[in-house]
């Protein structure tokens, strides 16, 4: 089997040790790192994402595959020191101010990285200013905010408002999600997208980035 195909297959099986080994072998065989990343690792994760969406596999298998993907990218990272890890876009994520709940946001971050995004995770209890400052400084295309309870939802609006005040609303897009969030609420506060779950969040972020590029 072609080594890139084998990386993809092993990744889908969640075999992190074998993925790490195969990625090393591919590097030794002078396979371009970009091809290993795109065709082997991200390629494998894309199939996992599709199978998850089709309910053929469940969250644990997705997360085992994600661990295998991280094992492979750790091998590749030193090869991209100069230009940095290639990414299809940069996303700043965090849980809203007043919120300590991480898991939903973590899952979204893992899936975004799996799809080839660079993710800057600010953790939880993140104030609007920090979201905006970081996105500006890092030249991120999207800010993603997660919330567990309705009581913290007004702070999400403050982040969108802050982008507006700074004239960054069209440059930096926003996506929000979490158990109490709805599409309607996202529209109401002027967020650019709503993510129902982690796979849906990835699709929405891709759409936001494409829309920005075509602007």
């Amino acid at each position: 089997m072609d080594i890139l195909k084998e990386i993809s297959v092993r990744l889908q099986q969640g075999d992190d040790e074998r993925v790490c080994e195969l990625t090393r072998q591919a590097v030794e065989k002078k396979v371009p790192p970009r091809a290993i990343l795109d065709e082997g690792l991200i390629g494998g994760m894309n199939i996992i994402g599709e199978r998850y969406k089709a309910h053929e596999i469940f969250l644990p298998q997705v997360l085992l595959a994600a661990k295998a993907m991280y094992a492979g990218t750790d091998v590749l990272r030193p090869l991209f020191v100069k230009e940095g890890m290639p990414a299809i876009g940069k996303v700043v994520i965090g849980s809203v101010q007043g919120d300590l709940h991480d898991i939903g946001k973590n899952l979204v971050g893992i899936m975004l990285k799996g799809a080839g995004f660079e993710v800057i995770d600010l953790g939880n209890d993140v104030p609007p200013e920090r979201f905006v400052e970081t996105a500006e400084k890092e030249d991120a295309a999207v800010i993603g905010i997660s919330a567990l309870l309705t009581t913290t939802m007004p702070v999400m609006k403050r982040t969108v408002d802050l982008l507006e005040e700074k004239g960054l609303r069209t440059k930096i897009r926003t996506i929000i999600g979490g158990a109490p969030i709805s599409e309607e609420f996202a529209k109401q506060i002027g967020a650019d997208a709503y993510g129902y779950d982690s796979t849906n969040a990835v699709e929405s972020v891709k759409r936001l980035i494409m829309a920005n590029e075509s602007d």
Partner: protein
Amino acid sequence: MRKILEIPLDEARPDQDAILETQGIPSGKELTEDVKALLERAIDLFLEFSKPKVAISDISIPGFEALYKGEGLNEQDTPLDEIITKADDLALFAVTIGERVSEEIDRLFKANEFALGSMLDSVASAGTDKAADTAESRYFDLLSEKGRITSSKGVLRFSPGYCGWHMSGQEKLFEFLRPEDIGISLLESYLMKPLKSISGVLVAGDKDIFVFDDSYPFCSECRSRSCHKRIRTLLKESRSDKKKGVM
């Protein structure tokens, strides 16, 4: 009466279906070997790191009616408005399994052990719910010792953030119950720390009083709909009482 009780770990150990539901795995689905191993490991970690505790404090019906008004933000018409008036006894409660489990989940995510971290999160959430079920039975036992309840009656819990009871209700609930004694604090956003905690009121009375029609305007926004299962479980022994409603 105000009681602080430790809940034995085996009583907080959640059922497999409840855990897998949060993982999005349908009940009855054959598990692969790797998922089975994750589940077992996560349950072991849960048993190692949880310390389930509950605080229970009696409250009179007029006392609760005043507390339930909270900050005046509840929905206009809620199931509890009617249920309380028919209740025999009420007590406020808060349960937690402690902070250590959340710290372990965090550690696992940082170590790229996402599947185990996420499975432990599901076990911990379901375990907290199970601990709250135990709070219901403990309250039943306490009332039973005083001869205030018989087996034909039941205890059911309701929480701020559910069934039209606004989250801001946490403020007055905390003032009265003081669950800080079992390590739970309330943030300005009304989030409780530790995360794996549940607060609310325990209502004791005839099983019939708990049956309500889940067609309140806010029911359509509820993501949980756990009322169905809980009321069905409570009524299990008297299914002939079946009425129109959440059954």
